[in-house]
């Protein structure tokens, strides 16, 4: 597109190529950096084991989860036409957390290691169905946000209840740690059960690019341009539930990636919500992988969980966003 002198913004193909290169670089870094610096501090069989059983699942999971969080954030912001929207807003993260916490509380996770991610997936699915049922078939963006908030509150309440009733202090610690979110020590099996859902959810979210562009003009104009708003809403909700639900089920809650990434990339994507989808997918993957590598570098000094790191970076960012929005709305 010839235009926009004096504005940020790249040719779409260059933007996506640059982001893909960043994500690829971050992936390679994730494979090569460990707690003892660059390379793998072992030889022979141990070396192979560390690479295939620890580094590779962690890097692949980081790519999938980061991509899912970035993409679903961009899709939700575009659909709701609100730059403050985030995947946890529609109740899916809360549902997944509740499912996993229940799996720990009921002792299922000790009987079967996969009970934790399966509980998370089931929780995300139930939360999604509850949100859709609550928001109704014809409701607009506002009812969706309200339904998401309602379901999140219920999930939070029940998580507190599980923590409160927990007799076993180890289980309580396990629940709290799990909710902080981490990519570490996830097995290939956990990766295999979550990956199909994450990929399916991402594919669904990528189909709404045209619809989100049209929604720039509001719902009536978008509809008159031939966009099926009900299908769009279903794709956004189901895509978020599948991708973020499956991601949260395996890694725990990793916040703010879905908020920050689309926000940073939006000017570079010339504010086009459709183009922002693939851009945020790649940008989210790159950002989570880099954050995870940073954790490993500081690990000898301080043991940080990735959900804590993203929250530490994300919360001040949110404050800044509020201040910026306030300045824009001021007369």
């Amino acid at each position: 597109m010839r235009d926009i002198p004096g504005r940020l913004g790249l040719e779409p193909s260059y933007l996506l190529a640059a982001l893909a290169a960043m994500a690829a670089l971050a992936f390679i870094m994730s494979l090569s950096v460990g707690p003892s610096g660059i390379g793998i501090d072992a030889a022979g069989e141990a070396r192979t084991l560390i690479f295939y059983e620890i580094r590779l699942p962690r890097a692949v999971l980081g790519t999938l989860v980061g991509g899912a969080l970035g993409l679903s954030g961009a899709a939700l912001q575009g659909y709701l036409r609100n730059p403050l929207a985030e995947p946890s807003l529609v109740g899916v993260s809360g549902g997944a957390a509740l499912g996993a916490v229940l799996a720990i509380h009921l002792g299922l996770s000790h009987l079967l290691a996969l009970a934790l991610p399966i509980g998370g997936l089931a929780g995300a699915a139930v939360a999604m169905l509850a949100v859709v049922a609550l928001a109704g078939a014809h409701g607009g963006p506002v009812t969706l946000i309200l339904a998401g908030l309602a379901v999140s509150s219920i999930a939070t309440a029940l998580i507190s209840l599980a923590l409160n009733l927990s007799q076993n202090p180890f289980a309580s610690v396990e629940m709290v740690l799990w909710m902080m979110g981490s990519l570490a020590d996830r097995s290939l099996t956990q990766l295999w059960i979550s990956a199909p859902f994450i990929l399916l959810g991402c594919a669904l979210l990528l189909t709404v690019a045209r619809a989100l562009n049209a929604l720039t003009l509001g719902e009536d104009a978008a509809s008159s341009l031939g966009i099926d708003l009900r299908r769009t809403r279903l794709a956004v909700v189901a895509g978020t539930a599948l991708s973020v639900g499956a991601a949260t089920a395996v890694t725990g809650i990793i916040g703010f990636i879905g908020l920050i990434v689309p926000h940073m990339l939006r000017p570079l994507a010339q504010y086009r919500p459709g183009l922002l989808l693939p851009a945020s997918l790649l940008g989210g993957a790159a950002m989570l992988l880099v954050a995870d590598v940073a954790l490993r570098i500081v690990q000898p000094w301080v043991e940080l969980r990735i959900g804590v790191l993203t929250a530490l970076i994300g919360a001040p960012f949110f404050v800044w966003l509020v201040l910026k929005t306030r300045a824009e709305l001021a007369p």
Partner: protein
Amino acid sequence: MRIEAQGLNMRLGRREVLRGLDFVAHAGEMTAVIGPNGAGKTTLLKVLAGLLVPGAGTVSLDGRALTDWLPRARARSLAYLPQERVTHWALSARAVVALGRLPHQPMGAGESPADRHAIDAALAAMDIGHLAARPVPEMSGGERARVLVARALAQEPAALLADEPAAGLDPAHQLALFHHLTALASAGRTIVVALHDLSLAARFCHRIVLMQAGRSVAAGVAGEVLQSEHLAAVYGIAAQYTRVEGIPVVLVADVLP
């Protein structure tokens, strides 16, 4: 494209907005829908655009029921310009106008030469070529209105339904817009505009439909519909359809007691 509606009934909440309304708009003509606030003009246009499903009655485009049209195919033939001037995000004017080409673009395709031509023509028609790179939120209300009209023009539809397209435009751009719409009608398009400015309706529209409380009170050429008795009964105003230097105008003298 001939737009025809018969026996339209529409209820929004508890209010009956359309009551047994018949409507027709012909190709090659500009049809004005006029009437006081709350007469049902916007609802009529939304029903004709397929955005609202009437409680009763039928809408057809070229004799084919509106419900039989696939949304994409309908969007290639029929454009709708809402009354609310909504744009989210800081898109450039050109990017907003380019959205009018969506129904013509296959999934994942970029801009074709035909798309580019339509976008440039729409920008030129609305006199916003020089603003193409400006973010729409930074524009004045009138400039933004012109960008959104250009979006509908870029759609190159056989029929255009525009709800208050002249609102917020300065007199020069109002005239330019209506000259352009007249040219489109002369080229065989169907133009339907909901209007409050009776003089614009008198001057430019081939047919006028006067609405009141969800019904069509009068329909026909300006001279018939804009009679003083009609305007007094529907709007409660003392007004006269006349000509000044050969230009049809509606002179509104006063509000009737």
